[in-house]
């Protein structure tokens, strides 16, 4: 098991290297000159000499390979350069905004789990019941509704018409409800669907039949055995969806003026603040990889068959 864990951690390194390479490649292939972008972001009319000096400062006159290695070394030290707009280190700016986004993400994950587990469970154990139809409807709508529009609908009904929640901003738990719910909606759709399918699949297993012949109470079989095993695809889904959650957060933060990581990134795009954009993409890729790793490890502890399967393939 230890070797499996170790190997799984090692596999992250090349993937992250590829991600840095893609990001580096995109930046270098883009028609934007970082030196020009720097002066444009700072609203300074630059002379040719100033441009040349900035290029030298950014190390743009060095060979590409050396530039890439330098970037890598800096990334490993959490040095993402200096924002063109504020002239502060990018990491400082980002770490100040991460808590707000994490708050939002955790809020939406909690909502998603508390809503989708009961619905998916009830829908799965009673196929074609009212709950089942409701769950299918929910997962269908959730997958098809644009989240920014949903956010405004929530604002319209709950803030403007009913005056229950504030329209935007942060502070109290009331501010957190609507943005988290908006972000959670596609997740609720997905998890309900996953759990339902997984439970239906598990009901065909022989252990269910065996438990039934032993005369164990139906609710005990479902609650203790089926749910515990059936929940595993949901955990995988959790890791796989972190990326969607991050992009979802950009949209939700824009709708609710939530002062997080995503909105900062959006502002950076409009200001052509290249170091911030690069840092965001790399951090998102890193977060995505690490969350997938954690999910894999959690699953391995729940279901040890996975690590054995893994060993077979190696």
């Amino acid at each position, binding site marked *: 098991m230890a070797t499996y864990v170790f190997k799984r951690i090692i596999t992250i390194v090349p993937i992250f290297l590829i991600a840095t390479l*893609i990001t580096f490649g995109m930046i270098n292939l883009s028609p*934007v000159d970082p030196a020009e972008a720097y002066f444009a972001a700072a609203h300074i009319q630059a002379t040719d000499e100033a441009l040349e000096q900035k290029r030298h400062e950014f190390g743009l006159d060095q060979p590409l390979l050396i530039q890439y290695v330098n970037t890598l070394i800096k990334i490993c030290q959490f040095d993402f350069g200096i924002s063109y707009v504020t002239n502060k280190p990018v990491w400082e700016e980002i770490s100040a905004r991460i808590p707000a986004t994490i708050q939002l993400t955790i809020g939406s994950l909690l909502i998603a789990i508390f809503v989708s587990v009961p619905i998916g469970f009830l829908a799965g154990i009673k196929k074609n019941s009212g709950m089942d139809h409701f769950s299918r409807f929910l997962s269908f709508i959730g997958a*098809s509704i644009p989240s920014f529009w949903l956010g405004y609908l929530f604002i319209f009904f709950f803030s403007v018409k009913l005056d229950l929640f504030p329209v935007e901003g942060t502070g109290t738990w009331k501010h957190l409800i609507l943005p988290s719910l908006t972000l959670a909606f596609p997740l609720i759709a997905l998890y309900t669907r996953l759990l339902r399918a997984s439970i239906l699949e598990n009901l065909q297993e022989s252990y269910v039949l065996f438990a039934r012949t032993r005369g164990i109470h139906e609710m005990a079989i479902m609650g203790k055995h089926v749910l515990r095993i059936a929940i595993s695809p949901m955990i995988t889904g959790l890791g796989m969806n972190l990326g969607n959650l991050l*992009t979802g957060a950009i949209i939700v933060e824009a709708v609710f003026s939530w002062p997080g990581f995503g909105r900062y990134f959006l502002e950076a795009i409009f200001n052509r603040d290249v170091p911030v954009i690069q840092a965001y993409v790399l951090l998102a890729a890193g977060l995505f990889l690490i969350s997938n790793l954690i999910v894999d490890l959690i699953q391995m502890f729940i279901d040890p068959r996975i690590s054995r399967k893994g060993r077979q393939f190696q």
Partner: protein
Amino acid sequence: MIAKFYKQLKSRKVIVFCSFILCVLFVITIFAPWLAPNDPIAVNLADKLQKPSLEYPLGTDHLGRCTLSRILYGARISLGYAMLIFISALSIGLIIGIIAGYKGGWVDQLLMRLGDGLMAIPSLLFVIGFVGIWGAGLKQVVLGLILVQWVYYARVIRGMVLSLKEQNYITAARISGSSTWTIMKNHIIPNVIPSLAVMGTLEMGWAIMNLSSMSFLGLGVQPPTPEWGAMIHEGKSYIRTNPALMIYPGLMIMLVVVTFNLLGESLSERFGVKRR
């Protein structure tokens, strides 16, 4: 073969219903200039924020532009570019899939690992990053969406080519004297068309949703071009006084995406294709 295909389609009410809605939408797309009662970008400040009337069936926005006309023209952007993305991604996937499957060896490895790398990055995140680096605009968004989408087609088509080379029943058909074209027609194309149809349909919904999300963020379609996502962005400031400005375009996005998703799902059930 076509008659049989049609019969299969007919047996499914949902498929027929969705196809009907899509046909209506495509008619709107093509005939928008004749259907729209007003010019979608003509500013008329005297008539701004009007309630629905005979002249403006769905009212007007903050610049006095006819909401209905803008929605009808918006269908052109959404459906038109989704089609463009679908066709481009399919073509790229076709070329790369054939090369990878046919050449095999390191070419195959390289192309498929590149694909794996692209699939490992959450797709919308890739598009936003791409637009972030290359600058906001419709062209960049469309290009980004194509770049993340071709991989799925390439994989299916590579599988098709490999099966041409390796599968036992294909070898059997070849030994028994079938020509390559017969094998393609009878064994391979019928196996690939369903998955491509399902993927294509679901992708249209996906592309329309993401195109409007990007326009909503201000990264895609730029004003004054009428686009549903951009219309919601403009309408949001009037959520207290004129919520209709934001509700109608959203309803349209949802209608189109629901239709494509429902169609894709029914097709995948019909053909027994697994969704990705």
